[in-house]
């Protein structure tokens, strides 16, 4: 429901034309096709490095053609461009049509000394700024490497999904909740299925278009979207409850805190359930490759309690996900 619908005292006459959404089988069919398209594109990308290279090339060319700041967020390419543009060339391209060459020469000489004076200062400033940007970029890369953000996750198997018993437990916790439920990091939809079957309005998001495909084909509303971005873009009070799983095990403390803060906005009077393994129980390989990422249920509980939420730790029969964190935000 939109903010316009929710805002107190607003008479929103939603006309028939706008509200006559075709919420029927067509929606499920179109959703399935969309998921298949996104999964097929991802599969082709993984299968064929040449396609991947071509796609990058298409995006890179646009960054080269567009003015700085207008295209993409590929920092390295933008920095290259900033380097090239940082130097102002005072040698104005006046062309060489005969007849007025002497006049152009005179203009060039008169203007040159002043342009040189101004451009030297601007160039010096630009050079300092671009050097500074490069230093920031290098420093950021070092920090990313240290935090394992850059590629550590790629060396590990995907985080497993909880078993059906955990999913049933989550559904029973959220059964009385009103409003839409979102499952962030939904995978193939194990956590979405019982909620959907119970008639709760629910959708799942996961960054991996291939992983969600079986669930979509099963009729679940799963979308290939980055879970963090989905939560960040949610409107205030958009969700009645939020379930976060999978991707939360790759978050450092600052990112986890951001999830808590954004949940307070997106599900302001609702319930948040965190489904996570305990980093203390990880094997040696996972512990080292996922160092600094993932918080224990106890720490999640602490972060929510600090906001004034009523937090409960609920045990489960799944040895990978022994404890659920249930935070009631109202």
């Amino acid at each position, binding site marked *: 429901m*939109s903010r*316009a619908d929710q805002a107190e005292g607003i008479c929103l006459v939603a006309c028939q034309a706008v509200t006559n959404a075709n919420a029927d089988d067509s929606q499920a069919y*179109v959703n399935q096709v*969309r998921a298949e*398209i996104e999964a097929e594109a991802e599969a082709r990308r993984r299968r064929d490095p040449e396609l991947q290279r071509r*796609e990058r090339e298409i995006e890179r060319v646009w960054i080269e*053609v567009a003015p700085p700041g207008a295209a993409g967020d590929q920092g390295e390419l933008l920095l290259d461009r900033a380097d090239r543009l940082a130097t102002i060339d005072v040698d104005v391209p006046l062309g060489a049509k005969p007849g007025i060459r002497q006049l152009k020469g005179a203009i060039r000489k008169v203007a040159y000394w002043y342009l040189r004076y101004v451009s030297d200062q601007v160039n010096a400033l630009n050079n300092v700024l671009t050097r500074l940007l490069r230093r920031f970029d290098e420093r950021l890369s070092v920090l990313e490497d240290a935090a394992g953000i850059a590629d550590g996750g790629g060396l590990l198997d995907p985080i497993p999904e909880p078993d059906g018993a955990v999913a049933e437990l989550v559904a029973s916790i959220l059964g009385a909740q009103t409003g839409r439920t979102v499952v962030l990091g939904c995978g193939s939809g194990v956590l979405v299925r019982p909620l959907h079957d119970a008639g709760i309005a629910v959708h799942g998001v996961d960054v991996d278009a291939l992983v969600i495909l079986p669930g979509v084909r099963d009729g679940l509303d799963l979308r290939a979207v980055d879970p963090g971005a989905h939560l960040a873009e949610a409107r205030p009070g958009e969700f009645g409850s939020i379930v976060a799983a999978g991707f939360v095990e790759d978050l450092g403390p600052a990112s986890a805190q951001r999830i808590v803060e954004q949940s307070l906005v997106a599900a302001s009077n609702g319930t948040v359930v965190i489904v996570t393994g305990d980093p203390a129980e990880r094997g040696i390989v996972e512990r080292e490759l996922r160092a600094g990422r993932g918080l224990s249920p106890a720490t999640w509980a602490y972060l929510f309690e600090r906001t004034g939420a009523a937090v409960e730790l609920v045990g489960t029969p799944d040895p990978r996900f022994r404890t659920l964190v249930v935070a009631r935000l109202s």
Partner: protein
Amino acid sequence: MSVVDLLVPELKSNDAIGAHTLLLRDLFVEQGSMVRFVAEQPSSMDEDVIVLPAWKKPGDLIVLQHGIGSQLAAAVVRRQLPVVLNYHNITPPEFVEPWDAAQVAGLRWGRAQLHQLAPFSRRAVADSRYNANELVDAGFTDVRVAPVLWNTRENDDRQTDRDTPVVLFVGRVAANKCHHDLIAAIAALRPSHPTARLLVVGSAASGSYQRALDAYAKRLGVADRVDFVGAVDDATLASYLTRASVFLCLSEHEGFCVPVVEAMAAGIPVIAYDAAVLPETVAHAGIVLGNKSPLTVATAIARVLDDPTLRKHLIDRGRLRAEDFSLANSREANRAAYDGLVTG
């Protein structure tokens, strides 16, 4: 008899706001009101227009069409007139800034005027829920939703060529409409569908963006597959609609997007990007993609071209969805949105 003043910066029949204003006039006239147009400059059309400096005594109802900063809105603010704002959205300046800094001032001004108008507005009417949310954020309290009025065209005549699929987009060439993503998609589609063409209808709102698009198509080796035909008359547009195989809209920002509805009405399957108002306007009658990486969009186009079941489904659902915005339905919605404002 009540006097209704319809305030529109410039009254033209060939732009969406102008056409909407003319049809809104008909609605008020049918209800027994006398309607006057107030504009910043005389109209090139055969319509009587009160030019702003001559607008001394406001009518019983004032309806301001708002899609960019205007002297009309400034006059309403200055005189604190009880206005009804008809909001068509304003392109966020950040889309325009890297390309045309000169246009930014008008956009920022328009958005600032929203906040200035809110305290003494009688009501606001938005084209879409998406636009309505912006009005609520700006402080409007009585916000209603009714779509843009325009004469939908009947078109059952399809002349698509399976050997040369045409991917169509209709809209001003402006950075928020992301024509570069359309070109990228055609480049990614080329290996599987080498004969596919991109046809773009719409005037160039930004010369620098248009030049970059031309250079981009050339660099990607698809310049021969991309046609920018500029603004066209109704008959030419109708002929393009009959030939299009897919309507592709990858805009980052739209307030309603009439061309999407026109495409659905013409029986063209729609692929759109999940941004701004597009999921609301398309409403499951088209493919709404969560990302617009070139390969994903190309895969979607290929699927729509090659899967007859999907194609038929989208065409059928699109026609149904377009019917929601037919002139009769939209007039009814607008009548309800302005209900109770005109007395006598």
